[in-house]
């Protein structure tokens, strides 16, 4: 630290710029905390990055598309270069989307990148959310970030919906019509919401312009804010990690942001963009020219929303047509119930962290991830949720499945109706059993070592397989998970001998806790005593 010579030497340009910025932004303190911040390496931790990068790609391509798209429902006669639409009456929105596809060089590519990235964005969020769920990464202190992520997923669905509706083609227009019908089913205010949203009767002349501002401004604005908050919290909490030697709840093991993580994460952005660009070069998505402009009296079979709205579509398709007419009013349960269930299915996954922390009563921070098998009830619940979601996706595509699997659409609908209730139960039971089996296997491995596949013949003729003992770090990794004791309701009388009133909540919690952690719901992990007894007592007999 020879300050005198340093002061005389003229600092390099980069340093001078940094100094300038530091004097105004305080970047050195920021960099001190973050430049060598440690990030653990695991492919499943990059699922969130796929979402982040596809979101950035969507914004970049979306901005380009706004330069050419006309969000207007003024009717024009098409005279562009796509022959099968010559002279057809359509809205400017549809005509300008045809222009982007056929008359703007690279326009079709950007449109396809935008749409493919959107499908991948939401699929990525789904998988990322499942990763967080099944590893218990949503536990304290990350519940709020779970909610941010959940909101991003939900808003992503609606941003996608308003986006694919913009071209005003026959397919998406049918989707908008469905939305309007669903809004009408809302008791009391349904007709008012519909009239206000559409500026009058369906379809009116306003909905595209309104969806446009929702799609490019309102929702992405909120999402951008949430993404930033989500990332700040990831930095602030520091990333979770899987159990392993040297990895504790008090540290985070990995490689520093500069240079490794920066190169990998930055590189991954280009990889994601590159893969999506190649997909857009080779695979058509939403060929609106083949669909035709929207007209409320025209329709095509195979009318589906994009995949992320598929489970809502399934709910609507398989619901029986219940309608109650009473006192001069109509309760359209056939449409309204699916609408409510749609919200409940999403809400269920949103509130789960709070339910679990209430059941465990655990107020500690958790930075070490659970292996899914070590939380059998949670894992089973998650798989049950995914099962019900997937069953509804089948329901949403029942006509396509019918034609391509040569089945009756009515049978598929009935299958979905029954399996929406039965499927999750089966999935729950099966998953839980598998988890318990895996736990048992882990326990055996810890106590008896790994099966080596080497068969040895003992002097008295018996054949045994040699089990190789695990290394210290393997033993640690397999026993590092925590196991809760089921909560007791506590004594019926307090310390003064007065009868204590048990609230219903307490009883429920005790019951749930038993379901999660009680006997038969988790396999007690090997203890040091058991290990010592086996390894000394039997002398490597196994």
């Amino acid at each position, binding site marked *: 630290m020879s300050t005198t010579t340093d002061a005389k030497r003229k600092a390099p340009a980069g340093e001078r710029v940094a100094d300038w910025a530091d004097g105004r932004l305080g970047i050195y303190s920021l960099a001190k905390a973050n430049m060598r911040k440690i990030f653990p390496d695991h*492919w499943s931790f990059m699922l969130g990055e796929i979402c982040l990068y596809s979101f950035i790609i969507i914004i970049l391509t979306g901005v380009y598309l706004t330069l050419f798209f006309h969000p207007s429902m003024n009717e024009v006669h098409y005279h562009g270069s796509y022959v099968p639409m010559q002279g057809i009456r359509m809205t400017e929105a549809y005509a300008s989307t045809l222009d982007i596809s056929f008359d703007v060089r690279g326009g079709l590519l950007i449109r*396809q990148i935008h749409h493919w990235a959107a*499908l991948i964005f939401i699929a990525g969020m789904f*998988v990322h959310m499942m990763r967080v769920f099944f590893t218990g990464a949503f536990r304290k202190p990350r519940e709020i970030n779970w909610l941010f992520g959940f909101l991003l997923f939900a808003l992503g669905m609606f941003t996608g919906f308003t986006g694919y509706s913009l071209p005003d083609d026959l397919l998406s227009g049918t989707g908008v019509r469905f939305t309007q019908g669903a809004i009408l089913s809302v008791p009391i205010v349904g007709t008012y919401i519909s009239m206000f949203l559409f500026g009058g009767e369906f379809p009116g002349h306003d909905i595209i312009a309104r969806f446009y501002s929702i799609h490019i401004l309102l929702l992405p604005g909120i999402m951008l804010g949430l993404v930033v908050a989500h990332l700040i919290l990831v930095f602030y909490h520091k990333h979770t990690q899987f159990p392993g030697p040297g990895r504790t709840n008090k540290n985070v093991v990995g490689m520093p942001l500069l240079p490794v993580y920066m190169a990998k994460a930055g590189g991954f952005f280009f990889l994601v963009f590159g893969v999506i660009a190649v997909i857009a070069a080779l695979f058509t998505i939403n060929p609106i020219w083949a669909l035709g402009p929207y007209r409320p009296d025209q*329709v095509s079979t195979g009318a589906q929303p994009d995949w992320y709205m598929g489970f809502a579509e399934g709910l609507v398709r398989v619901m029986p047509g219940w309608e109650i007419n009473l006192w001069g009013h109509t309760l359209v349960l056939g449409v309204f119930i699916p609408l409510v269930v749609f919200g409940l299915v999403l809400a269920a996954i949103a509130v789960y962290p709070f339910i679990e922390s209430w059941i465990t009563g655990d107020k500690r921070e958790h930075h070490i991830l659970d292996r899914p098998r070590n939380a059998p009830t949670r894992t089973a619940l998650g798989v049950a949720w995914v099962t019900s979601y997937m069953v509804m996706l089948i329901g949403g*595509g029942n006509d396509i499945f019918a034609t391509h699997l040569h089945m009756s659409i009515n049978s598929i609908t009935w299958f979905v109706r029954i399996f929406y209730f039965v499927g999750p139960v089966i999935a729950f039971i099966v998953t839980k059993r598998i988890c318990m089996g895996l736990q048992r296997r882990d326990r055996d491995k810890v106590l008896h070592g790994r099966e080596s596949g080497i068969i040895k013949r003992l002097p008295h003729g018996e054949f045994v397989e040699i089990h190789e003992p695990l290394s210290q770090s393997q033993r640690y990794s397999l026993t590092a998970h925590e196991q809760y004791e089921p909560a007791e309701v506590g004594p019926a009388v307090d310390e003064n001998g007065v009868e204590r009133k048990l609230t219903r909540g307490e009883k429920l919690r005790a019951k749930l806790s038993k379901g999660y952690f009680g006997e038969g719901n988790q396999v007690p992990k090997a203890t040091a005593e058991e290990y010592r007894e086996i390894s000394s007592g039997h002398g490597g007999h196994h």
Partner: protein
Amino acid sequence: MKKLSARRRHPLAAVVVLLLALAATGGLYAAFAPASKAQADETAQSLAIEEGKKLYSVGCASCHGTGGQGTTDGPSLVGVGSAAVDFQVATGRMPAQQPGAQVPKKPVIYDQAQIDQLAAYVASLGPGPVTPTEKQYNPEGADIARGGDLWRTNCAQCHNFTGEGGALTKGKYAPSLEDSTPKQIYEAMQTGPQNMPSFPDTTMPEKEKKDIIAYVKSVNGDETPTPGGFALGGLGPVSEGLFGWIFGLGALIAVAIWVAAHTAKAKKS
């Protein structure tokens, strides 16, 4: 099972009979050839009916009845017209193999001359839509865009935006029109085969049928451009969603695994 295989034998038997019939037709034609034209036409017509009747009694009568009056296994053919026969037989739907929700398309077992004879016979049972001539169905010069509009009003609800087909109730379906010829599409609109409604000339004139054929052939033909790349079946969001999940997200996860994987360590030296 036995009954079924017995039925299956019909078409095979028919082929043998047909070959004989064909030879006979040729011989008879040679015998009558020098006669005057009008007379020849009339005679050819009655001959065709005669031959068609023979084919009919072998291949069709078991279900549709010996006089085309229909049985419990098949509808009456009186008044269906030659167009219906030409469509059903030339797409291989008839003779049907087995009962089911819908009689599917199959390899054709009659040649065009035999189909014409069958059609002539069935047409003789009662007046009905006549097999269209090429002038009627040839879509050359038709208005493709107008056809598209008509297609979306009248056809797309069952056959999809570009004629890829779609589901109907209880296992029935609207077939894909990818391999259908203009003539078959015309006949289908004219006659309404199986559960498809008909679009008679009174409500959909010949010109509009041509426009529709021109449209469907322009958006679902061998030369149809798919500017964006693979069309993924032209089925819309379901196939796009499956592709996005399996190949899109799948490829990205594969890349992520590579990015996060540990690099090979040097051997301990």
